[in-house]
C-alpha cells in the first residue's frame, strides 16, 4: 500500500509539470500582461521594461516557468499585478469554494443515492420513469440556464432567498448555489446508483442474504447497497475536481467570491499570476482527489489489491 502511494505520487510529477506548463504558456502567450496592466493607456517604455524585468517577462518562457515553479514551492505564488499577493486571494477564495463544493457533494450523496436506490428497486414503475426523465432534463440543460432560472425564480420573483451571495458566503446563502452546482452530477449519481442497484439486486449473494432470513431492510442496506455503492463512490471522488471547475459558472451566477470568481477576474484582466497560481492549486487538488479515490476503492472492495 505504502509503496503504491509513493509510486502514484511519483507518477503525478510529470502530469503536474505537463498541465501547469501548458497553462503557463497559454496564459503568458495570450497578449502582453504588462500592456494589460495599463489598460487603455500605453505604458511608458522605461517603466514597462522595469516591470518586465521584475516579473521575469524578459526571459525565455521555459525559464520563466522554472523560476515560477521554484517560487511556488517556497510558498510564493507571486503578486497580482496590482500588488496583492496571490496567496492572499487564495486564502479568501478557496474556503468559500470548498464550502460550496462540499455542500454539492452532500446533496449528491443524500439526494442522488436515495433517488438511485428508490428507482433501482422499482424499475419500470412510475416513480422510476419519472425520476429518470427528470435526470435526463437536468443533464441536458446547461448549468448556466438552470442556475439563472433558479436565481430568478427563487431570488428575484418570489424573493425566498437573496439572489446574490454576500462576500463572506455563509453556508445558508450557499444552499441554492450548492444545489445548482450539484445538479448535473446529482443526476449522474442517481442514474449510476440505480443501474448498480438493479444489477446487484439479481446477484447470487443477495439471494443468499434473503435465504438467511434477513429482513428486507438489512438485505438492502447491508448487502445490496454496500456493493452497489462501489462505483458511485468512485464517481463522487472524481467529481471533486469537476465541482471545482463547475464552480466557475455557479460562482458567476450568484456572485460568489470564490475560486471561480477569482479565476474569471484573472482571465478577463489578464492577471497571469492569479490565473496560473489558482490553476496550479486546482491541478494539485484534482490529482490528490484521484489518488484518494483509488485508495478508497481498495477499502470498499477487498478484492482489489495494490502492489
Amino acid at each position, binding site marked *: 500500500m505504502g509503496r503504491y502511494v509513493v509510486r502514484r505520487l511519483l507518477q503525478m510529477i510529470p502530469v503536474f509539470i505537463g498541465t501547469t506548463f501548458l497553462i503557463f504558456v497559454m496564459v503568458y502567450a495570450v497578449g502582453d500582461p504588462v500592456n494589460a496592466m495599463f489598460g487603455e493607456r500605453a505604458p511608458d517604455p522605461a517603466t514597462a521594461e522595469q516591470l518586465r524585468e521584475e516579473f521575469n517577462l524578459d526571459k525565455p518562457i521555459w525559464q520563466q516557468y522554472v523560476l515560477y515553479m521554484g517560487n511556488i514551492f517556497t510558498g510564493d505564488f507571486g503578486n497580482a499585478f496590482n500588488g496583492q499577493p496571490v496567496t492572499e486571494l487564495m486564502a479568501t477564495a478557496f474556503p468559500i469554494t470548498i464550502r460550496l463544493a462540499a455542500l454539492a457533494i452532500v446533496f449528491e450523496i443524500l439526494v442522488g443515492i436515495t433517488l438511485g436506490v428508490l428507482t433501482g428497486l422499482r424499475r419500470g414503475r412510475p416513480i422510476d420513469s419519472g425520476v429518470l426523465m427528470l435526470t435526463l432534463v437536468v443533464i441536458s440543460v446547461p448549468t448556466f440556464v438552470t442556475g439563472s432560472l433558479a436565481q430568478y425564480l427563487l431570488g428575484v420573483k418570489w424573493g425566498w432567498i437573496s439572489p446574490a451571495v454576500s462576500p463572506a458566503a455563509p453556508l445558508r446563502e450557499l444552499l441554492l448555489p450548492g444545489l445548482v452546482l450539484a445538479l448535473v452530477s446529482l443526476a449522474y449519481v442517481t442514474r449510476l446508483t440505480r443501474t448498480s442497484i438493479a444489477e446487484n439486486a*439479481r*446477484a*447470487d*449473494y443477495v*439471494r*443468499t*442474504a*434473503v*435465504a*438467511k*432470513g*434477513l*429482513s428486507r431492510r*438489512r438485505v438492502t442496506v*447491508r*448487502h445490496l447497497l*454496500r*456493493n452497489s455503492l*462501489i462505483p458511485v463512490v468512485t464517481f463522487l471522488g472524481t467529481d471533486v475536481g469537476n465541482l471545482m471547475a463547475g464552480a466557475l459558472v455557479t460562482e458567476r451566477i450568484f456572485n460568489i467570491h470564490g475560486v471561480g470568481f477569482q479565476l474569471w477576474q484573472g482571465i478577463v484582466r489578464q492577471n497571469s499570476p492569479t490565473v496560473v497560481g489558482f490553476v496550479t492549486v486546482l491541478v494539485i487538488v484534482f490529482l490528490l482527489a484521484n489518488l484518494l479515490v483509488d485508495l478508497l476503492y481498495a477499502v*470498499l*472492495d*477487498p*478484492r482489489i489489491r495494490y502492489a
Partner: protein
Amino acid sequence: MSLLEVRDLFVEFRTRDGVARAVNGVSYTVEAGETLAVLGESGSGKSVTAQAVMGILDMPPGRITGGEILFQGRDLLSLPEEERRRIRGSKMAMIFQDALSSLNPVLTVGFQLAEMFRVHQGLGRKEARARAVELMERVRIPAARQRVGDFPHQFSGGMRQRIMIAMALALEPDLIIADEPTTALDVTVQAQVMELLAELQREFTMGLILITHDLGVVADVADKIAVMYAGRIVETAPVKELYQAPAHPYTKGLLDSIPRLDQKGQQLNVIRGMPPSLLDIPPGCAYNPRCPMARAVCRTDEPPLYEVSAQRRSACHFWREMFDGR
C-alpha cells in the same frame, strides 16, 4: 406428519417470450433425517421447486399458481412474510451451487456467519463472532481463528463451499436444501464436501434435499430419489430399487448415460434430443419426442403418476413393460 410435504406445486414465469411453466404439479415428501435426491437435466425445475420451498423465488417474474408447501404441518404459502422470514435460515436453510458468487464479496466470512446469530438470536457482536469461529472449525476449515476475518475470495473453492455449509448449519435447521453443492468444485474435493455434508446431516438428523444431476453422488448418500422432467416428477423410488430397475424410460436413459468402469472406451448412451421448451411443453407425455418407447397414446394422453409399489411412482403409461422387458 412429514417434515416437508410439497403438494401439487405449480410455478410459472412470465417472460417477454411468454409464460414458462417451470413447475407443473410437483409433489414430494421429506421425513426428518431423510435424504431426498432430486434428479434431472438442467432446466427441469429442480431449483425453482426448492426456491419456492425456501420462499426466495424471484417474484415477479415468478408466480406460484397452485399447490401447498407443508413444513412441520404448517402451510408456508399461507404464512405472512415476516413469519416465513423467521423460518428461513433458522428452521430451513439452503446451500447454493456457486459459493463464490453466493457469498457477499465485500463482507468477511466471519461477518456473514455471525450475521445468522445476530439476526435470529440477537447475540452481540463478540459472541456471534466466537460462534462463527466454532462453526468454521466444525466444517474443518484449518486455522479458523485466523481466517475468520478473511474475505470469500481468499479461500479455495472447497473451503468456500464449507463456509456455505457452515452458514446453513449455523442454527441447526430441521431441513437443508443443497442445490448442486459440489457441481462448481474440483473433482478431487467434491467427495470431501459431500462426505462432510452427509456426516453433519446424520449428526443433526436433519432432512436433506439434495439437488444434483450427478447420479454417482446420489447412490451413496440418498434414501430416495425424485426424477424431474419438464417441471414434473416422472419417477420416485427408494435409491436401491431405482438403480436396480428404473420404472420410467427417462430414468433409464439417465442411468445408461453414467460412464462405467467396466465399459471403458464404449460409446455412452446419451439421451438423444433436448429437453422441451417450458414455453411450449409437448402435449401428452412431455418426454415423448425423445422416448424410445413412445407410442400414439403418449402423444395425446398425459400419464398420471402410477403407483408402481407402496413407495414407488412412475409417470409412464408403459411402466410395466419396463420391468417385463428385462
